[in-house]
């Protein structure tokens, strides 16, 4: 993966830049020392490492604004970072860029149950929000699997999902307001404790913008009453086709489960060997279907789902009788990644989304690719919303195997796009899928996105090298088409 050519002049100015940042921030909030900088050299995509030029750890909006203003005036690149759990390299530092760590923004500012809102700083972890509102019987719905570590600021940057998206939406569907600092140091407030924006929905487009548009310094989230009950079904099937048909029929019957997860045989076995969750080893596919809500409704819908499963030829059906059993059903799914980690020295997690009905075809083609390249693949799948997580098993110590795994992963994503899907459902583009953007978008599509970037950051200083395969200068993108040899309103001056 090629990153933008580092600016040697900026690297040569490291001491001077650190000194300037120490005039803005307390001395201990600026990290210049080589060993200490190394702590920030990668995120959840550990294949890539790069210590940053210098690390800045602001603790107030005013400090963020001052740091960004300084970087803007000095044409310095900035990489924002939350907890560094990105699986796509969204927080991968730059050798010539300031790493802006938001960890000190770790306070819950207000819990407003009456308005179903919580105001938090971006460095608060996803789970800590739910914990802060739990005494009132509330929770924050999006639950990425890294929720004990990942921060809400990072969730906003990546528009993070989780296993409950089909019913409760992603981060973007659960935000009410943001405070954000632009690269020039200007602070804008978007939304609040009310719904929808007065003007353009900038909060909507900032969500999932991977740190390229601004730095979020405060987040107001929508919180929900915890459902009265949650129950799960564990359903075994003789084929992925049968399991897929069951998913389609549940939705066609008007039921939107809180979660609907599928695992294929390799994933079932890996999980069962690891945590002994009681999964049926003979099944080719396993579905976990979770219903939540009022007790009477959940009981009714559980029975209906069980009937649908049987009609689709399920080979085993179990319904959780109590909370402990429900947790056990989930234990294998939640441990799927480490379970696969046990059977292979390394694994590479993909994140494409497909129209659900194309699943059997995609799985079959994936198996063929697996045989062709000699690497095993295990599949866990957010079946309700079509979000695939193929885990490619490889050994980084064997020469060439990382490259083979990456090429296999890229082929899987091309396949996802070819059947009408997308490159990433919840992990983000980052550096990982940057060079595949052209599979999904043509030059005009990408140019329109880049022009939006220019509206926020005309110098391209925020998180460059992520998301876009080619870095264009804004002036180049802004060039106007000349229609029939003449500009419209030729009498007007242009700059």
């Amino acid at each position, binding site marked *: 993966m090629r990153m933008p050519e580092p600016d040697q002049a900026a690297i040569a100015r490291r001491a001077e830049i650190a000194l300037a940042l120490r005039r803005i921030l307390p001395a201990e909030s600026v990290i210049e020392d080589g060993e200490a900088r190394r702590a920030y050299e990668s995120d959840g995509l550990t294949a890539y490492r790069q210590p940053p030029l210098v690390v800045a750890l602001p603790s107030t909006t005013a400090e963020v604004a001052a740091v960004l203003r300084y970087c803007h005036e000095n044409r310095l690149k900035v990489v924002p970072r939350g907890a560094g759990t990105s699986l796509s390299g969204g927080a991968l530092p730059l050798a010539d860029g300031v790493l802006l760590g938001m960890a000190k923004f770790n306070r819950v500012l207000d819990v407003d149950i009456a308005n179903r809102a919580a105001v938090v700083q971006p460095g608060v972890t996803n789970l800590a929000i739910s914990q802060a509102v739990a005494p009132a019987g509330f929770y924050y719905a999006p639950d990425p699997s890294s929720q004990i570590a990942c921060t809400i600021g990072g969730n906003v940057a990546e528009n993070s999902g989780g296993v409950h998206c089909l019913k409760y939406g992603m981060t973007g569907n659960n935000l009410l307001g943001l405070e954000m600092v632009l690269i020039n140091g200007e602070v804008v407030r978007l939304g609040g404790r*009310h719904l929808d924006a007065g003007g353009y929905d900038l909060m909507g487009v900032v969500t999932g913008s991977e740190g390229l548009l601004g730095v979020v310094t405060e987040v107001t989230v929508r919180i929900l009453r915890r459902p009265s009950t949650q129950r799960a079904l564990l359903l075994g099937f003789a084929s992925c086709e049968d399991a897929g048909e069951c998913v389609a029929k549940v939705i066609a019957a008007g039921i939107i489960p809180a979660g609907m997860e599928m695992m294929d045989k390799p994933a079932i076995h890996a999980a069962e060997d690891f945590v002994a969750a009681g999964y049926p080893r003979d099944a080719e596919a396993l579905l976990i279907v979770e219903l939540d809500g009022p007790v009477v409704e959940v009981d009714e819908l559980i029975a209906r789902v069980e009937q649908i499963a049987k009609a689709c030829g399920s080979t085993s059906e179990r319904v959780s009788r109590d909370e402990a059993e429900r947790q056990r059903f989930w234990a294998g799914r939640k441990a799927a990644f480490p379970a696969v980690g046990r059977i292979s020295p390394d694994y590479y997690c993909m994140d494409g989304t497909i129209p659900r009905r194309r699943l059997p075809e995609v799985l079959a083609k994936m198996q063929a690719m697996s045989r062709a390249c000699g690497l095993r693949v295990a599949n866990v799948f957010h079946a309700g919303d079509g979000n695939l997580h193929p885990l490619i098993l490889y050994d980084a110590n064997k020469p060439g195997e990382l490259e083979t795994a990456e090429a296999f992963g890229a082929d899987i994503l091309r396949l996802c796009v070819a059947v009408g899907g997308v490159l990433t459902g919840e992990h983000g583009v980052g550096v990982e899928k940057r060079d595949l953007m052209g599979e999904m*978008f043509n030059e005009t599509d990408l140019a329109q996105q880049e022009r939006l970037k220019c509206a926020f950051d005309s110098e391209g200083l925020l998180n460059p090298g992520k998301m876009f395969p080619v870095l264009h200068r804004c002036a180049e993108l802004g060039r*106007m088409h000349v229609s029939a040899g003449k500009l419209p309103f030729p009498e007007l001056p242009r700059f």
Partner: protein
Amino acid sequence: MLTPLEPATAEELAAAVAAAEGPLELRGHGSKRDFGRPVQASQLLDLSRLSGVTLYEPDELVLSAGAGTPVAEIERLLTANGQILAFEPPDLGPLFGQEAGRGTLGGMIACNLAGPRRIKAGALRDYLLGATAVNGRGEIFKTGGRVMKNVTGYDLCKLLAGSFGTLAAIASATLKVLPAPEAVRTLMVRGLGDPAAMLLMSRAMVSAEDVSGAAHLPEAAARCLPHADVGTAVTLLRLEGTPRSVAQRLAMLAKELESPSEELGEIESTVLWRGLRNLLPFRGDHGAAIWRLSVPPTAGADVLRACGPVERCFYDWGGGLIWLTTAAEGDAGAARIRAALSASGGHATLVRAPIAIRASAEVFQPQEPALAALTRRVKESFDPLGRFNPGRMYAGA
């Protein structure tokens, strides 16, 4: 004015925009044409021929259609399959003197419409999965996709929703749809003053009973309802789900609220919430200016009091949405209504007013300088020449 442009395909739309020599007014059915600041355009860009549902897969919860497709056609198709647009888009046409049941997919997206279920299910913005559109340079671009979960690139759909046709001309769009609830019931409490109603709605929304609509109609607005025989305010709470679940939750909610309440049945509830969604309390009132305020729900009653004299009003979204009418004179109350928001935050939109008022007063919530500048830069990033609906939202956007 020049002959209207009437493209029937995305390519024709792109060619029409590229060839246009001046500003264009984007139009579907024109049902909400008088919503927004007046547009000074030299040519009409009629998008109604970009019509037709191109993809509908009920078990994938997805529907794609041309921007000119009538919303009524989409809703008929969904109803036949037991599905809905969960955000309950209101039919605003009659407010503007148009016949009911008009309006296109593109117009619905441009206004980011959402009705009573907004508090539970979200707005149109939350259901727009993807779009193909033409920017002000006459280039076709696409954003998003047709799958439920997608974070590939910037989500430009969010900007298209609620941009009143100022950023791009949408050619086609893909929506997430949802199953229709099996049963609906309403709990009605009579006689509450506004502050007491805010508290009641807040308690209902905080309860475990999964309320999908919470509205309060002060006496004058309640007169439009068939239940208004006693001439009091009514507070309405809607529950949806399976029949057994709704019946049980209704009983629980009635007990928790500790106020005498009545139950409205399936048909009555359906008619009632459709009426609220389509602003029934303002029906027949052709002269007044209509405002829509979005505020923190618990602040609703205080904001309304601070607004000063209003002609008619009601609350939706548990108190977080205030619809009110004022005399259509002067600034239609813009200054005092926006001042009333200063303590709580929120935004006020002048949905209907005579053209002279919309040309002078701010129709959309005025923005701080940094945000206003960013808004203009975003507009320019899509439409550098100011081709599309110039000035419809703000001067320069």
